[in-house]
């Protein structure tokens, strides 16, 4: 797919939508308005946006515990998302899933997932389904550096390569498996190296650069649709907020200096500078995008807040078909 101006603006809009939603969600969580745990995607927006701008609703994704960004980039509506985070009946999962299981089948989003590494085997099934029906679609599984140590990832990688499934393994290496730095949880620097063990290409991508992500995905999707099998894209990125919530538990597992270094490479700021240089989007026009998205987010919050709680009588619905 050609990276034209329209696509650049599309990627930008997806990133801003994620950033704004997550920032407001974090604020609401700290204000005690959202029950449970939130794993926020701020800092990693270039990955979901660069990949998802290639995909349609007929392409399937599996996500992670840090899943809001994937659903937003896949077309998720703010109102139904906030409603789910608030546990309302109007949420994407009728309040039964919450942040960690937010999903929408119509958008091809097979769920955020509370179990690290559980997504890749499910994406193998979705890719098998695509191949079985012989449509020109792909399945994409997002997972982290931490999940790349789970057996499920390895079983899925082997099976996807064996069956030459139309699939992308997208590792969002944010440097930490929860609170443990990568160097303390695996002996390799590049998760992409693991691809070779399964007979698929593995590439390292600058995960703060949406164009780099977009272009790497383009090649991998072309390969997948040609019947040549899966690829592993390792996107090096960083989590600006904590593992859980915004400031998390105040643990001293990483330094403020490290965070500041990565924030200099904020994926949205870098992308906006680039769009300005290319005369695709002026700074003023970018501000207008942010304002419009913020208004949409606020409308989404209002929708969620004014939505009814689930009727306790629905407790046992949806256990079985």
């Amino acid at each position, binding site marked *: 797919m050609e990276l034209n101006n329209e696509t650049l603006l599309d990627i930008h809009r997806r990133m801003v939508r994620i950033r704004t939603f997550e920032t407001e969600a974090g604020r609401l969580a700290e204000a005690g308005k959202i029950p449970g745990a939130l794993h926020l995607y701020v800092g990693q927006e270039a990955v979901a946006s660069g990949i998802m701008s290639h995909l349609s609703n007929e392409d*399937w994704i599996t996500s992670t515990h840090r899943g809001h960004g994937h659903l937003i980039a896949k077309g998720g509506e703010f109102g139904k998302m906030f409603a789910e985070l608030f546990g309302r009946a109007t949420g994407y999962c009728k309040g039964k899933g919450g942040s960690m299981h937010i999903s929408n089948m119509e958008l091809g989003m097979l769920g955020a997932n509370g179990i690290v590494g*559980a997504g890749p085997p499910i994406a*193998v099934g*979705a890719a098998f389904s695509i191949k079985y029906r012989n449509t020109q679609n792909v399945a994409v599984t997002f997972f982290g550096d931490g999940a790349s140590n789970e057996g499920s990832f390895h079983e899925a990688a082997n*099976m996807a390569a064996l069956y030459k499934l139309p699939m992308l393994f997208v590792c969002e290496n944010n440097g930490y498996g929860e609170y443990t730095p990568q160097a303390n949880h695996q002996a390799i620097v590049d998760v992409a190296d693991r691809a070779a063990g399964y007979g698929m290409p593995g590439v390292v991508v600058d995960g703060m650069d949406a164009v780099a992500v977009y272009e790497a995905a383009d090649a991998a999707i072309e390969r997948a649709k040609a019947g040549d099998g899966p690829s592993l894209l390792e996107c090096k990125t960083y989590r600006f907020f904590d593992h859980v919530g915004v400031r998390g538990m105040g643990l001293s597992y990483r330094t403020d200096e490290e965070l500041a270094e990565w924030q200099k490479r904020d994926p949205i700021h870098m992308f906006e500078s680039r769009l300005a240089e290319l005369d695709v989007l002026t700074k003023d026009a970018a501000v207008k995008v942010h304002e419009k998205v913020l208004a949409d987010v606020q409308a989404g919050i209002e929708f969620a807040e004014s939505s009814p709680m689930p009727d306790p009588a629905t407790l046992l619905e*949806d256990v*079985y078909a």
Partner: protein
Amino acid sequence: MADERELTYIGAVAEASRTVLLEQENAFIAGEDVAGAGGVFGSYRGILDEFGDQRIVDTPISEEGIIGLGVGAAATGLRPIVDIMFMDFMGECMDEIANQMAKMRYMFGGSASLPITVITMSGGGINMAAQHSQSLEAWICHLPGLKVVAPATPYDVKGLIISASRDDNPVFVVLNKLSLRNRGHVPEESYTVPLGEAKVVREGSDVSIVTYSRMVGESLTAANTLSENGIEAEVLDLRSLQPMDTDAIVESVKKTQRVVVVHEAVRFGGLGGEIAAQIQEDAFDYLDAPVARVGAPFSPVPFSPVLEQAYIPNAGRIVTEVNELLNAA
């Protein structure tokens, strides 16, 4: 019945699988050694030749991957039959079973359907020792979102697999290894045995034996022995364990006032405890004696044939338990 056609228990698996693939174009089979080898027990013999390698797929030895393949394929519109060779291997895939397959529909607010049939093998008696002989059905019956059946006869094997394949929920078909060569009447045409319906396989008035899977046969043998001494046992084959036909259990208890629950699984924490609890909740006033249970002792399944025979419940143990129950009352 005019049609007295017979098949083995395992032959019924193959015939049911073939029927499902013929009836449902989105159905496929995946598992270890299922295609080229036709299944290590012969469950899928002939399927590859008839349907080709798109409809029956050999997988790596990757149980978590296999169940994940089933979950993802089912959620996106196919109707997989996945084979987990021995149910002892559920430890390798329990996350995809317990946290994904069982819960996806609920977590997604009902938007996902997971029409998956999982075919697996339970039970001892063929000297396969502690990791290939277990009866772990209690693990999966405890998980809301799953259905579980455990057929005792070739007829029920075929009918329950076809029912499972038509159901829009994940259904585990727990087969029994020592029953594989058992023969019984199986109609050639397609038919279903409803999920969730028990069956009285022997009428009796003195005691109810509530059981499933291979222990149905042992219970019938026990009932014949008891009958020689004037005790008429009713044998109830549960067939489905989740959902369980509690009404049928209660009805039988009301008739006999005494009940022994029999399963091959370890007694402690086995389904017998749940069944006993349900009986005391729903039929306490009808009981003339405490609910008795026969199950395996609290030990791994041993290897040596002598030890294994001492381990697995059998007709003799059931007779003893019934006699003790009747003498105590």
